């Protein structure tokens, strides 16, 4: 059994390719059924977002899982296989686990730390669960990946800091006002950027929107989009008293808001701050306005500075997220080891040997005074019984371990023999982890170029 990943993302494929390879939610059931009909695929999950399409699969031992998935992708979307592989990346074994954990932690996203990906992976898993395309391995892997996502979001600040200008403005506004609920914004100029920023502010609870523009009709038009109020340009400073946030983005070539004009509007505000966002170039607001008490002015460069600082912060947090992923990978590897056939057989034999020795000791005490020859005969007899009793089950277990439902048999055996914990003395990270997680193949050099570190490439000889 192998873990296989085939996919493409914003890192490897342009949008015109990505859009051809999507699996919309309403077609995932059909797609998963087709994929599961492939003989080599035991479990599968399709993750399809605007930035990535990835197919995670558990494939039969010895089979070329990647090839099976690529064939499916090419057939399903009616694309040329050789053309398609140019944009794909492939991972096997342990690299699949790492990749999934990194995706869920949003470390592989276009914007590191974005929050949507966790929900998208959950949705993909739910589709697969609904169509019974996931089994023991993916149930465990994906559920653990959600834990990873949750841990990364709660234990790091990866999603805390805004990385776009408009969100940075919202973030700063929240540092001034705490909550934006019930606040009033005044938009000066009806440009796209001010509209976008206003949109984010409104989404965060801003109640009233005032729009001022040299052309009153354009102000009315923009105000209409926010159910706001258009105001005459000459009323600007009078109405500014009502505003908590001012967004300015006019095409003026000089300062349209000066310190002398803002100072009177600050009287009678009882210490309520005024947050001014100047996203115009050249600037609309005289920088001296920032000198007024309770006035906080940010221009486009200041906001860019915030974004850059936040990106650096996210990169720092990403390193902490990688540590969490490493911890979780160890946990997953431990679980997968417990599902391994070789140590399971060894554990069954060890347990039987323990029972044999204990019973033999008791019997010898009762018999007493046996000659050396008799002793050897009794020992050989008990060993022979144990070996013959275990030969059948262990041989069958080894035989079915590589099949589609192999884990069910191994788990059943562990349950029946009471092997809830790893057998004593079993070395860590061996056996199945080498096969399931693909280490054996990598050791043999067969899949050396298929790891997560080399996701991009045409490893199928295209």
């Amino acid at each position, binding site marked *: 059994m192998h873990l296989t990943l085939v996919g493409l993302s914003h890192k490897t494929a342009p949008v015109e390719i990505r859009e051809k390879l999507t699996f919309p939610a309403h077609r995932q059931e059909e797609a998963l059924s087709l994929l599961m009909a492939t003989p080599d695929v035991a479990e599968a999950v399709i993750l399809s977002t605007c930035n990535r399409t990835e197919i995670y699969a558990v494939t039969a031992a010895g089979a070329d899982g990647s090839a099976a998935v690529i064939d499916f992708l090419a057939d399903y979307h009616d694309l040329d296989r050789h053309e398609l592989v140019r944009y794909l990346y492939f991972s096997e074994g342990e690299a699949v686990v790492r990749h999934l954990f990194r995706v869920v932690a949003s470390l592989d996203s276009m914007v590191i730390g974005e929050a949507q990906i966790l929900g998208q992976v959950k949705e993909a898993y739910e589709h697969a669960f609904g169509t019974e395309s996931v089994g023991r391995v993916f149930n465990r892997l994906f559920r653990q990946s959600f834990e990873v996502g949750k841990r990364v979001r709660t234990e790091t600040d990866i999603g805390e800091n805004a990385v776009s200008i408009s969100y940075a403005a919202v973030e700063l506004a929240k540092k001034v006002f*705490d909550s934006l609920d019930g606040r009033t914004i005044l938009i000066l100029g009806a440009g796209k950027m001010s509209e976008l920023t206003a949109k984010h502010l409104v989404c965060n609870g801003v109640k009233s929107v005032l729009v001022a523009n040299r052309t009153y009709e354009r102000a009315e038009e923009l105000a209409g989009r926010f159910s706001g109020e258009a105001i005459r340009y000459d009323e600007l400073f009078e109405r500014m008293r009502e505003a908590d946030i001012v967004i300015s983005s006019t095409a003026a070539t000089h300062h349209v808001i000066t310190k002398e004009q803002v100072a009177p509007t600050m009287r009678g505000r009882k*210490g309520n701050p005024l947050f001014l966002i100047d996203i115009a170039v050249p600037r609309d607001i005289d920088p001296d306005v920032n000198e007024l008490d309770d006035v906080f002015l940010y221009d486009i460069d200041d906001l860019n500075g915030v974004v850059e600082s936040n990106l650096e912060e996210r990169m720092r947090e990403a390193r902490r997220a990688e540590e969490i992923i490493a911890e979780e990978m160890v946990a997953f590897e431990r679980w997968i080891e417990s599902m391994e056939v070789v140590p399971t057989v060894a554990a069954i034999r060890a347990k039987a040997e323990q029972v044999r020795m204990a019973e033999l000791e008791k019997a010898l005490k009762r018999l007493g005074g046996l000659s050396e020859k008799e002793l050897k005969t009794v020992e050989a007899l008990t060993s022979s019984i144990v070996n013959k009793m275990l030969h059948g089950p262990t041989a069958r277990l080894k035989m079915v371990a590589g099949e589609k439902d192999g884990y069910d048999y191994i788990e059943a055996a562990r349950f029946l023999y009471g092997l809830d914990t790893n057998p004593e003395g079993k070395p860590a990270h061996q056996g199945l982890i080498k096969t399931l997680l693909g280490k054996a193949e990598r050791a043999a050099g067969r899949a050396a170029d298929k790891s997560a570190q080399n996701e991009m490439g045409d490893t199928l000889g295209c």
Partner: protein
Amino acid sequence: MEQAALVNLWFAMTLYMVATVLYVYHFVAKRPVFAWYATFATGAGFLTHTASIGLHWGATQEVPITGAFNSLSLTAWALILIYFVVEHLVKLKLYGTVLVPVAFVAMAIAQISLGSTGAELTADALEQLDSWRVAIHVAMIMTANAGFAVAAAASAVYLVQGAQLKKHKTSALMKRLPSLTQTQQLARRAIMLAYPVYTAGMLLGIIRAIEFGLPAWWFDPRVMLSGVVWGIFGSYLFLHYKSGASGKLLARIALVGLVAVVVLAVIARTVPTGFHIFGL
């Protein structure tokens, strides 16, 4: 019982110290679990502290309001009590990082430098204190002082955060500190609650002084400084509600007010004049 009170007091101080470390660690590392431990340690410290005050009261049969030791201990107790109210209201652990260390330092000074006993008082002083009004007067002033301390802490946070925003700094500190309006609101509410309590506490003290027939009671340095404190926080409220002063000015006034409270509580004690000396 006296021994038990002392043991409890040491426990309370230790727990406040542990809470201080945990709050600071939470602030730096932003680990919510540590904030929970810190709150737990503070709560446990507060209960132990309360038990200590109760045991001490039971052992001496005297309301523990005299002397610098009791003043500091009660201030720390009131501060923690107010902090819990604040934490409940604003759901912010940040103020624990500011207020719990203050309570711990007050306790440490009381315990290490001043010993745990009350003051030796003259018969005249004991007679002056023998009134329910005095106990309530002390409790009210202590509670109000704790409220002023909360307001000053919030104001300090306001000034720091305001400076960060003015300078367009996106430091970790800026991200950890709460918003301007929240800190401003907390300071204002704390003063709005503490000020009437302080006023009532002062009035009770004045009534007691007049009742006891103290000559020129108003000339006592502590009484006069109390008037200054009352005036400072009164001007805060006036400037906010009547003249719409800037947040920065109001924050500075709150800090000046706290300085006056500290001067009143510490320095005025070292001036052994006036009637208001019930043990240094």
